[in-house]
């Protein structure tokens, strides 16, 4: 398909009329087991998809609007709730952008803890994706397995932050809690458990002949097309492009960490499944390194720490809990703008923050990976069969609220 030929006619947007006698139009969603919170309009010629249109916006949450009308600190829970399987990354991306404006640099230990939380989160996010992919292909077992195996990792997050999903762990200048005692041992046994589980996943799911039949050579996106379509994240790497924000512009502790960016060659649905498993393996490797190499020191920048009152400092010494200086409430950063990029579970988050010296952000803008992968989904599914639609849709690991923001 020549991309240049594809012209979106605005009058076409609402139209669901089939073209010609042979076509029927399927409205998959928004209340459909295979759609998520969106509507997929599929024009079908027999069993072949001739056109797909994704009707999104059902779970639009006005995150940008809300954040532009609140103090800076309040955007942390807001962005988290947009990317629920991937909260730490959303939190991290926003805080990175804010830190650039506030000009605070977190200490190394905080950097490592951020990476630690981010990698645990990446594992849970990928497991979430694998699980949903499973149910889209009809395997409830993998769905349950992936969600079950997510549990030990969520437990780790709970131990670290006190909440399971919406951690609000990262604040400007560092992180909010010190790593608790006994965390390393628990993390190690969880990682070993997950490594053992890969065998079962292989036998039951990855090498299951039915899965291979359903996914191999389905939804192929080659390298050039992937770049052209603006794919991000694991989906891009499944098409053979070696791009990872953690390597391209390192943030948190990724400069000091030795890891590989897995890559696949074919760019089909099967590769998009494999890449997630490979990335979990890499994340396990990163977590091990972090636990080994994490430097001692404070978990909050000195510029923030020095603003704490004596009570708060005492609390920090006793409980290793960072309290907020009063200025978090009345941040009025000078007029400036900043961007931040973070490699989230589903791809790159891009954050743009503009301040005007007011207590609210002047412009708060973010582009989430799911949104960028959606455009690609509507393009890829054309030419495949109806039954491939859930396979492709599941494999791109699309999370509707993340795209709608």
């Amino acid at each position, binding site marked *: 398909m020549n991309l240049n030929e594809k012209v979106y006619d605005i009058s076409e947007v609402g139209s669901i009329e089939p073209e010609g006698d042979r076509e*029927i139009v*399927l409205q*998959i969603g928004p209340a*459909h*087991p*295979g759609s998520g919170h969106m509507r997929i309009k599929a024009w079908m010629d027999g*069993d072949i998809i001739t056109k797909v249109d994704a009707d999104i916006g059902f779970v639009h949450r006005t995150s940008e609007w809300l954040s532009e009308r609140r103090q800076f600190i309040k955007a942390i829970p807001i962005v988290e709730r947009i990317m629920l399987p991937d909260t730490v990354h959303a939190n991290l991306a926003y805080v990175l952008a804010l830190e650039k404006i506030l000009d605070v640099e977190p200490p190394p230990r905080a950097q490592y803890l951020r990476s630690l939380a981010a990698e645990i989160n990446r594992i849970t996010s990928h497991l979430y994706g694998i699980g949903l992919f*499973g*149910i*889209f*292909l*009809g*395997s*409830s*077992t*993998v*769905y*349950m*397995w992936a969600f*079950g195996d997510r549990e030990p990792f969520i437990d780790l997050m709970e131990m670290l932050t006190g909440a399971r999903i919406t951690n609000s762990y990262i604040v400007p200048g560092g992180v909010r809690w010190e790593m608790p005692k006994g965390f390393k041992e628990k993390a190690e046994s969880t990682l070993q458990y997950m490594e053992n589980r890969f065998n079962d996943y292989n036998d*039951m799911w990855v090498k*299951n002949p*039915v*899965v291979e*039949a*359903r996914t191999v050579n389905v939804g192929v996106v080659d390298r050039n097309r992937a770049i052209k379509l603006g794919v991000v994240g694991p989906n891009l790497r499944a098409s053979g492009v070696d791009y990872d924000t953690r390597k391209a512009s390192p943030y948190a502790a990724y400069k000091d960490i030795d890891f590989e960016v897995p890559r696949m060659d074919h760019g089909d649905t099967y590769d998009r499944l494999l890449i997630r498993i490979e990335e979990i393996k890499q994340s396990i490797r990163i977590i091990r390194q972090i636990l080994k190499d994490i430097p001692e020191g404070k978990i909050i920048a000195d510029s923030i720490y020095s603003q704490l009152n004596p009570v708060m400092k005492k609390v920090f010494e006793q409980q290793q809990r960072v309290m907020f200086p009063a200025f978090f409430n009345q941040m009025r950063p000078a007029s400036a703008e900043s961007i931040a990029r973070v490699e989230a579970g589903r791809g790159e988050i891009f954050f743009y923050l503009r301040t005007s010296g007011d207590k609210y952000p002047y412009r708060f803008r973010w582009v989430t990976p799911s949104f960028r992968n959606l455009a690609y989904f509507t393009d890829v599914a054309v030419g495949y*069969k*109806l*039954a*491939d*639609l*859930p396979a492709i849709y*599941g494999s791109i690991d699309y999370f509707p609220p993340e795209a709608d923001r």
Partner: protein
Amino acid sequence: MGILLLIIWLIQDLLYLIVFPGLIVAMVLVILLIYLERKIAAKVQMRFGPLYVSRKVGGALQSISDLLRFSFQEFILPVGSDSIAFLMAPGFMFAFAMMPLIFIPVGPYYSYLFPSTLTILFSVALITITPIYAIIVGWASDNKFSFIGSLREALLVISYEIPLLLSVIAMVIVYKTLNYIPAVAFQETHLPGIILNPIAALVFIIVAIRSTGRFPFDITEADSELVMGLYTEYSALFFGIGMATPYIELYALSLIFSLLFLGGWWPASGHATGLLAGLFMPGVMVIIKAFIVMIVLVFLRAVYPRYRVDQAIRSGWERIIYLGIIAVIISILEAIII
């Protein structure tokens, strides 16, 4: 005197149809099977499965509570549907799924409602009728998803009926009879059918999975594509009937499988004629075997995702049918030897 015999004969047959191994036993087994299916899947999937309805017995009454729920739900007739077909088709489907049981004997001394020596032929022929009503269901619903589901059903039926017949023909060639009772007798004196012709058994099992919509051939009801497939527009008891039909089919096919391949009522084939030893014991034996087959088939849900419709059709025409032909050839060779 003649009339009395006729009445006894009728009552016996009605009991046979309605109580054992017919409707009531079938329903009980289906309810038990659905429960076990959910429990088995839950075991593999690291969870509990049904539990809260009747905690003391591990949630065993869950299926009954579901049945009750279906019975008292509001029934919705979609506006665009062909109402007569919409209402009648599930009933017919269920009836035709039950019908093969008339011709499936569960004991050596069993009198038929329709005395016949062609029971294998009749039962298999009746099994192939149900899909017609599945197609009517899809048509009558006036729903694109149901329609696609019924088209898929039609395509799959065409591609899997021939292997079914081939595998049955293979066994008929070995047993040299079209009647179940001599076929079982043959297995008692020789070997069970599954050893005589494993290929035919394999083909039969695959077709059984396919025609009852078990995984990995859960194609007509693929929920991530077709919502609920054929039954998208159905609600209340009609939905319940639609859901139970494949299980009844599964029951019939498993009975046929245990008769043709697993030696039927062996080893409980007492040559007594009493009600207990003559009908009940062999019957229980057959049903136990059939139930094990059913459990194995529902276990597949925990292992497989589903195939795409074209892959299933292709494997039907490209692989299974050749397996069926091989099975027939093996049988011919065996028939010559024995």
